[in-house]
């Protein structure tokens, strides 16, 4: 039986999407995290990112397993619980030519990892930090996490009586330069945000609501598919045009917030809320706090700053990766030691 194999579509660096895939997922069928992995694959493929240029980082938890399920051609580091930020920082210092993609969860970020998370945001390290946020601990069978909303109910009937940590508000306040929230079920929005994230220089913090089909997808949960379908309130419609694309989108003037990205791409945010300005920190925080009070889940790009220097800029390091500088550069000559010895005599 002769069948013709269709030529696979190649991206701008000549790779088929297959080269961006990973191992088979061991997460539950229907887990939001799998959808996020798919969007990461799409975004990296469409942006034509060389897989060998990416370092996939994670902590511990269901979300942190997911880097095994996309981009097998990229080096990956599944570290310890809540400590992915520091490992990522070190890795980037060793080789700042790499692209860092970190995947964390709500427990990994907002509880055990809160300390490292806030300091990562503060440094504006060039990296994409994704929280796959389902409001519960999956691997230990469904305890609340610190992003669970007040009043949210577990399957067992236990009601959460503590307020949620808003990781987006935290990230904006602390210094991340691209902050947004999305939903694993919103393919279009998430893909556009991921592509813009790839083009951004600085810390990108994306909180992606990603329902846990096993422990947190029931009536009474505020992180379920149903709840999200009912309460997802996009603040803007995210459009992204990569630097290498020749696309022109027309919007009514005054309706779009246009952001010129570092690499020449443009992020086009069509306003859905009255005059929301994504470069105004105070407005972003006020809007996020209000949405929490209203029990709505605001999504979209909340904050962006394309000018702020990154941590690597501040360190003023050479262009080459520090890790592979030759000995002639990293070991000072004998004369330097002799000089030091003379001053100590």
């Amino acid at each position, binding site marked *: 039986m002769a069948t013709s194999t269709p030529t696979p579509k190649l991206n701008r660096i000549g790779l088929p999407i297959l*080269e961006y895939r990973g191992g088979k997922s061991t997460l539950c069928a229907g887990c939001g995290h799998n959808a996020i992995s798919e969007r990461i694959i799409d975004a990296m493929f469409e942006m034509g990112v*060389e*897989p*060998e*240029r990416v*370092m996939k980082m994670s902590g511990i938890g269901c979300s942190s397993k997911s*880097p*095994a399920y996309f981009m*097998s*051609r*990229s*080096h*990956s*580091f*599944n*570290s*310890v619980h809540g*400590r992915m*930020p*520091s*490992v*990522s*920082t*070190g*890795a*980037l*210092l*060793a*080789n700042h*030519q*790499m692209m860092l993609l970190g995947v964390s969860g709500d427990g990994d970020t907002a509880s055990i990892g809160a*300390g*490292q998370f806030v*300091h990562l945001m503060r440094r504006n390290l060039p990296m994409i930090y994704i929280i796959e946020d389902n409001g519960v601990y999956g691997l230990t069978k469904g305890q609340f996490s610190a992003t669970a909303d007040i009043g949210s109910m577990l399957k067992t009937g236990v009601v959460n009586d503590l307020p949620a940590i808003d990781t987006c508000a935290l990230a904006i306040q602390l210094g991340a330069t691209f902050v947004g929230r999305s939903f694993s079920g919103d393919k279009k929005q998430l893909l556009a945000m991921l592509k813009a994230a790839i083009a951004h220089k600085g810390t990108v913090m994306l909180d992606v609501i990603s329902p846990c089909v096993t422990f947190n997808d029931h009536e009474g949960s505020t992180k379920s598919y149903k709840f999200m379908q009912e309460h997802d309130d996009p603040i803007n419609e995210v459009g992204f045009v990569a630097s290498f694309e020749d696309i022109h989108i027309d919007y009514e003037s005054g309706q779009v917030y246009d952001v010129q990205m570092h690499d020449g791409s443009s992020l086009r945010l069509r306003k859905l809320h009255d005059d929301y300005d994504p470069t105004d920190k105070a407005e972003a925080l006020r809007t996020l706090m209000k949405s929490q009070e209203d029990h709505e889940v605001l999504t979209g790009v909340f904050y962006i700053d394309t000018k702020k220097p990154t941590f690597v800029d501040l*360190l*003023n*390091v*050479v*262009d080459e*990766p*520090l*890790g*592979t*500088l030759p*000995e002639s*550069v*990293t*070991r*000072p000559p*004998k004369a*330097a*030691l*002799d000089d*030091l*010895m003379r001053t*100590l*005599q």
Partner: protein
Amino acid sequence: MATGDLALGQEQGAMSAQSRVVNDFSINVATVNGSGSQSANSVLLKSIFGMGVPVSGKNLFPSNIAGLPTWYTIRASKDGYVARKRDAEILVALNQETAKQDFMALPKGGVAIYEEALNLKQYREDISCYPVPFDKITAEVCPQAKLRKLVKNMVYVGVVAQLFSIDLAVVEHALRLQFAKKQKVFDLNFGAVKSGFEFAEQKLVKHDPYFIEQMDKTKGQIIIDGNTACGMGAVFGGVTVVAWYPITPSTSLVEATTDLLKKLRVTQEGKATFAVVQAEDELAAIGMVLGAGWAGARSMTATSGPGISLMAEFSGLGYFAEIPGVIFDVQRSGPSTGMPTRTSQADLLSTAFLSHGDTKHIVLLPGSVKECFEFGYASFDLAERLQTPVFVLTDLDLGMNNWMSEPFTYPEKPLDRGKVLTAEDLNKLGGFARYKDVDGDAIGWRTLPGTRHPKAAYFTRGSGHNDSAGYTEKPDEYKAIMDRLARKFENARKLVPAPVVVKNGASKVGFIAYGTTDFALRESLDQMQKEHGVGADYLRVRAYPFAQEVHDFVASHERVYVVEQDRDAQLASLLKLDLPAEQVTKLRSILHYNGLPIDARTITDEFAAKEGL
């Protein structure tokens, strides 16, 4: 302890005799923390050094910014002993609060230099007393009241120099080095030194037996603290990423490293070939070190006991996922916060086995500032060769005090960057398995992120993995990795610095020690010879895992005393785990753990008591 007491009595007897005591005494300077006495102490130390007399200095300071008492002891020793001496013969009492107590603690026949108004002479008659109107002299040479507190210290340097015959020109030279490019500061301070010197010359009548005389035993030697020496080692070891969190007594190690990097490792274009990050805590510091080591950098951190505790989980990841990194631990007294400004050797067991599960680490044990430098750079070679975290254990005594040393010599061997595959290698091989023992040395080949080859990537994890870095919970795959890690550790015995053995004859008694215990033990061995006619052999351990020589040494002696500065005989315990069962009963312990550096007399007396001498 009868014999021990006798020995002590003899020493005191010698001191009270009116014969000259030349180049063999200690000066204890008691001041108030934050009074700026450090420069004066350093100048006095370097002046004695400048007289060619072997010298050592120990700063005994409180965990406090300003106000609490602090002592600095300078020991001059014609025989080259640099360990702490239990009693200092000479007191410079500049702290009113502790003056009487310090004065009462002087040995019979001792010397006291003190502020006139304190009138210490009324309390004892067996001390040579030199009252000095420090405040009056200081006011005369220093019109600015604000600076008097600092300048007063230099007056004592002048008094001491005159009383004990230290050449004023030598003091001037030391002072010039101290204030290298600050002429005004130099002038003010030298003025103070001179007025102290002149006061002593005109008003004090020398009536004690202590003298400094010119020798030639410090020619060509350097003076440096262990923390700076470690930092220098790291810089000449090609460190590129430093992540740290401030903690006494390791802070100055990173500060020295940073200063040297800024001096030696900036390109002509003004770009850094290094990154130093002050992390949010020690968890983050070690995380950054491992992230950087994984991605190919020579990375390090420096900390002390509490930081080591926080680094436990990550250290296990480094061991199991096989990631290089260097951790300097400048030990202080624990447990918990303990005594942050006092020394100790009590982190040995916790670093050797740091983390949960079956974990063991390479631990290097420098015993001098020269070894701080040498192990400082060698640690990076070992970490990358063995693909594992390497701990370098010093202590507060070695790290924060000034030590004499031969000048450091430039590393002979080029950097050993370990087993790393390039894209070209992968082209030839067609692929690789990260944790497979292809060479029989129990070390796999690794690739670095950024290697442009489709087969370069692998998945690093702290969870169970197989030869090809895949996730596993299979019993045989997990066990195979654990067994290979054990083999790798076993092989490391031959790669780490070998012990140093000193044979003193056909003695059946041996001693084992490490780190700063060495200074006191070497002096003690001379005391044992002199006082008891015992010529014991001595092995200084320089790394864990122990080399075969350590086993041989124990096997060839009847009794082996393990001398260390901790309560729980940690070195002896580690040896017991390593030695064959029949050798274990040979070990005996001499322990010192009061926060002060160990001294020779303590060892000699306890040895004599245990041996019934």
